[in-house]
């Protein structure tokens, strides 16, 4: 059976009894694409949105159910903006994620040291928290030069990030503002 994804989805809409193997209500089995050569019975599909520019193209990610590893990424033909196409970067999503050069350990560089050291999350977060408290409290300004109440710290600055999800952006501003930071900026300013 040779059908394109688009044709298949039309068929699928009429006869969903073909079997919903994947996460989002459509079967991946007879799709004519790179994925056609893969063992699709054991694949989970999820949709995503490209992490590069702000066009917001749809992507499909295929994950091997047995290993939990991502095995393929491609454009989402159902997406009304990109209709399946992707640019060079979007098409390389797989290599962004499955990449041996990623740093997957918490790393620490001590003052005046010439090397990174591997650390645990707890060790690093404990130490960052102590640093934050010290920097924040030492440079906390309750009243400014004019005597106006300002309740801010001038000891810490923060930048980031347009690479985060909406929900993360919101929480990050909440955390930083509750700590009293006013120097809060990110990529939108450059």
């Amino acid at each position, binding site marked *: 059976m040779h059908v394109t994804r688009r044709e298949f989805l039309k068929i699928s809409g009429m006869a969903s009894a073909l079997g919903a193997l994947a996460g989002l209500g459509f079967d991946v089995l007879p799709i004519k694409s790179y994925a056609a050569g893969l063992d699709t019975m054991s694949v989970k599909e999820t949709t995503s*949105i490209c992490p*590069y520019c702000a*066009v917001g193209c749809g992507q499909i990610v295929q994950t091997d159910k047995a290993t939990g590893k991502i095995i393929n990424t491609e454009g989402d033909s159902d997406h009304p903006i990109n209709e399946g196409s992707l640019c060079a970067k979007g098409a390389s999503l797989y290599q962004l994620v499955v990449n041996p050069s990623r740093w997957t350990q918490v790393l620490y560089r001590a003052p005046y040291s010439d090397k990174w050291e591997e650390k645990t999350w707890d060790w690093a977060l404990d130490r960052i928290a102590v640093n934050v408290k010290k920097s924040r409290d030492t440079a906390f300004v309750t009243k400014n030069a004019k005597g106006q109440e300002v309740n801010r710290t001038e000891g810490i600055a923060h930048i980031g*990030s347009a690479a985060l999800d909406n929900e993360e952006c919101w929480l990050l501003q909440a955390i930083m503002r*509750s*700590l009293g930071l006013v120097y809060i900026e990110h990529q939108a300013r450059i």
Partner: protein
Amino acid sequence: MTNHWIDIRNADCILIMGSNAAENHPISFKWVTKAQEKGATLIHVDPRFTRTSAKADIYTYLRSGTDIAFLGGMINYILTKELYAKEYTANYTNAPFIVSSKFGFNDGLFSGYDPKTHKYDKAGWTFEKDEKGRDKRDLTMQDPNCVLQRLKKHFSRYTPEIVSSITGTPIPDLLKVYAAYAATGPDDKAGTIMYAMGWTQHTVGVQNIRAMCIIQLLLGNIGIAGGGVNALRGESNVQASTDHGLLFHIWPGYLGTPAASNPTLEDYNKKNTPKTNEPLSANWWQNKPKYMASFLKSMFGDEATKENEFGYSWLPKVDDGVSYTWMDIFDQMYKGKFTGFFAWGQNPACSGANANKTRQALGKLDWMVNVNLFDNETASFWKGPGMDPKQIKTEVFFLPCAASVEKEGSITNSGRWMQWRYKAADPPGDCKPDGDIMVELFEHIRKLYKRYDGVFDTPILNLRWDHVTGGKFDPHAVAKLINGYFEKDTTVQDKTYKKGTLVPAFAMLQADGATSSGNWLFCNSYTDKGNMAARRGKNDPTGLGLFPDWAWCWPVNRRIIYNRASVNAAGKPLAPNKNILEWKDGKWVGDVPDGPWPPLDQKDKGRLPFIMKTDGVAAIFGPGLVDGPFPEHYEPLECPVEKNEMSAQRINPVAPIYGTAADTYTTCDPRYPFVCSTYRVTEHWQTGVMTRWQPWLLETQPQMFVEMSEELAKLLEIKNGDPCIVSSPRGQVEAAAIVTKRLRPFIIQGTTIHQVGIPWCYGWVHPKNGGDSANLLTPSTGDPNTRIPESKAFMVNVVKKGGK
């Protein structure tokens, strides 16, 4: 974007200027191409012939930093030939308003300039008022002091001859572009603008965009299908990181950050909530107190009460008139102000202007946290070029994070579409979703404040935390809080909502603490109907590509902002061939209208279309900016000419300048004779942290290069592929020469001026010998309104490596 990506296909003429959309927003071109297939004209104006130019029906060039001259010439053309949309400008803009006699303009300076402080007193930039306090107007637009006539006078100086001498664009090309774009003035024609950093990264960045807004208003192109003012934003979620207030000057939903002069919420509301004497104005910002109270409830929950003004005093205040922007952060850091610094999902050692200053500044910290996917020039700055780790005290923490497909949540594209994405796999090794890192970090900090005394710990202890489940970040819970809840049983418009119900839309938000909403603009995105951002419906009832059931779009799923400007006073579409909104049988049909009111001809009930403006109309005369109510051409801070041909004022008189040893500027200096601009390539993204580590992409664009014209290469005895040194007073980079016809010399004021271009997506960490950041060369100056850096026009020298 006022409009959205698919809507580009509805345009009759597309101007791409300050952008190379084909290479930097490649999929946008699917819709540009569809418009062209239907007969639309594509115009590209850029110093360099790019792949965007290759697809254009009309391409012409201009020298970097002269866009206002180019566009000013177009304003002059439209006004002298009377090609503007008369009804639209008279009814929907402030073109008929009478400008105050206190306003003036003389030889490059607007009235109110103080040469000592380099600032304008804007008190005279106003309109004459009638006895009811309403703005005086002449709907015939003939009064010599009305906005349209003042505009005409201001831009009458922008003749094709002067414009051409400033920009280097041949006069026939100017006229060809002006005629093609001005042809979108008739009601049934739509013209759109696609711009990006090519317009923002200038000392006149905001005024570049203002100039185009004026053109769009004169031609009646805002609020309609195929029109609008469309910023092509460069990061996948930069729209919402802005919407959610990760900037010093705004809280979520564009609520201005409270200043020290507003000690109480009552003061803030009184001073920042606009009032209007215009009976037909919706003046939507009159609702600001509701959004403030709802935001504070989302921050502090039950601890936020009427008595404590919902915790208003717990949040930090900025000093009035002080700038806390990116450039100010690194200026202050360089001077040793900060001990701690978070660079979350960022690589400022390559991304900000004057990168050497940034890199030096990082060494003055006690500690820094970098959250990222890969090694980068910021995390490893202490072992970078010219650095001696033994001399650098900064303690550095690198926290590895999850990639986009290793967590769940939403992002908002340039067209304001909030789209949900799902988790496909666990992150590798110790990598964690950023949200989990935030939650765990804050819990570690809060534990310290619970255990030990701390300074002003109330906001830390009281921060609302019910959206965190079992120590894990819960994107659905946060998304719901961003939408907002009824915090007690509340009756709105005869309907009672139980405590804990999600608020259906921002019209229901309250100022008395009855509702929470983390960001009023996103209220309606997660309701009792479910997660609107996750929708995948493909209905297109208008046939114009609005796709109202696909994902969700702020505000209230309105796909085209200011869409009431697309209809006449009777509510009928000005362009029946592009009908996005129509008043039919007593209701609106089409897109979600900009407010529920009936059309303007329904006496006292209708409202003017520009609902976010206090007076209900769009601002051709725009007194809100710090550098003038009309755009005016100034040369870039670093430029190749001694004289600005428009006036005695060479540069923007209020452009920011910094004074540390790392801040050097040069102009008309024979040591740095070439104009330079930075840009990106399709295969890399921003500083390249997410792309340089991918062999597929790196193979196609492996190293730093400098593009130059054949004429300049001949002059410098440089051949294609030669290693070169590009330098400015602030630094230098090595780059391979690309000798190309894509760049050409300009004839400016009768003299030949050369321009070169360099990409900013490389850095010393990886690949080895791939070159370093273009931002080592760029100056710490920028737009006086936004302080976005002037990376698109500065002066450099180029020599063959090993040459003189």
